[in-house]
């Protein structure tokens, strides 16, 4: 059994290796613009040495450290957790820290700021509107029964693995904004909450600990809300965390159209306390 698994892994690795291109250096074509300094948009080409494991973020940081310290980039964790290094890499929204140079074709890598976000400087964009949409859908558990201030009543809600499965994938969202950048509706309609906020609305709506479903539905059931999604699906194809925002949107629509039911069995805290 173990041999079989090892064989499978080796096959997968070989398949993956074929896709990788080993190079000793690449040219980064970096989008540069600074509206405040009245610097017009242009591209700078910078050659950087790379290894098999070099990520686009590593290459950019090398360029910043040794070639041009004025390149504007935003990053933090370097491990696809914080969601701050989103940019367009060869035209596709990706996380720079999660994209290896060896996976990309060609010896020139074009890096540009995310579209659908107001531009600030070089590769840095303004996320205020994106976060405002996220906040608007009330992305937190609301439950009158859960009185967190009263220690005596404090307890935990019971959830079955099935209950968890309903929202688990959506809770992996790191708010990187790649889906928002890829969405064609966001490009024309700034009031549209976008795939991230809408899938989060579903994430909390379907969570059986939450009792704020009605209010959340009222927020997204708007002229510029959930109905303006046109099934492009580009959000799901760019998500680096395996979230399928398009699925969340369609599932929530099913509830709004009355095709699906959301039967909540909100756990009774008092009952739980008695049992314990």
């Amino acid at each position, binding site marked *: 059994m173990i041999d079989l698994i090892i064989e499978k892994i080796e096959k997968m690795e070989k398949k993956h290796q074929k896709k990788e291109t080993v190079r000793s250096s690449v040219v980064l074509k970096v989008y540069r613009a600074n509206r405040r300094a009245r610097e017009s948009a242009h591209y700078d080409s910078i050659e950087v040495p790379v290894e098999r494991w070099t990520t686009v973020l590593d290459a950019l940081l090398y360029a910043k450290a040794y070639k041009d310290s004025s390149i504007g980039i935003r990053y933090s964790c370097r491990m696809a957790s914080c969601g701050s290094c989103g940019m367009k890499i060869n035209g596709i929204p990706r996380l720079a820290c999660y994209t290896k140079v060896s996976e990309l074709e060609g010896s020139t890598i074009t890096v540009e700021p995310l579209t659908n976000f107001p531009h600030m400087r070089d590769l840095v964009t303004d996320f205020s509107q994106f976060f405002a949409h996220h906040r608007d859908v009330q992305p937190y558990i609301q439950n009158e029964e859960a009185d967190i201030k009263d220690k005596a009543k404090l307890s935990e809600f019971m959830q079955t693995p099935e209950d968890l499965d309903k929202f688990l994938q959506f809770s992996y969202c790191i708010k990187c904004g790649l889906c928002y950048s890829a969405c064609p*509706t966001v490009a*024309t*309609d*700034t*009031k*549209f909450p976008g795939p991230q906020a809408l899938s989060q609305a579903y994430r909390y709506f379907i969570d059986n600990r939450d009792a704020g479903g009605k209010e959340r539905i009222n927020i997204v*059931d*708007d*002229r*510029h*809300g959930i*109905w*303006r999604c046109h099934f492009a699906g580009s959000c799901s194809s760019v998500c680096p965390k395996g979230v399928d925002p398009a699925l969340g949107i369609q599932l929530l629509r099913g509830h*709004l*159209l009355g095709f699906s039911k959301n039967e909540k069995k909100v756990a009774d805290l008092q009952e739980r306390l008695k049992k314990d």
Partner: protein
Amino acid sequence: MAMLRESQIMKIHYITGIAALFVVAAHILMRLIMPYNLSLEYDNVIANYHNMPYVVLLESILVLIAIHGFNGLRIILLELRQSKAWEDGVTVLTIVAMMAVIAYGTRTIIVANGLGFE
């Protein structure tokens, strides 16, 4: 301004779209019960307008497609610009245009049928 929730409007949008598919299919099939060019001859067209079930079919095509089409137009226009005045203007304009098209089409059906004019 909003008399209906967006989900209610979209329910109407989907239902009218699906229903329109059926009535338009029935309409096309009725063109095929005789050679196509004959079906469009003046006498045959007028005869169709005197056939009550056919009149009901035509009127339903008119109403369903007008509702579905003008709501589709409203959605496209809403995405073009975002301001309360534009959104309310677009909503009023599409409702008025939809009613005008339905009224004019219904008038044509009534005139061709001869109802009230004989």
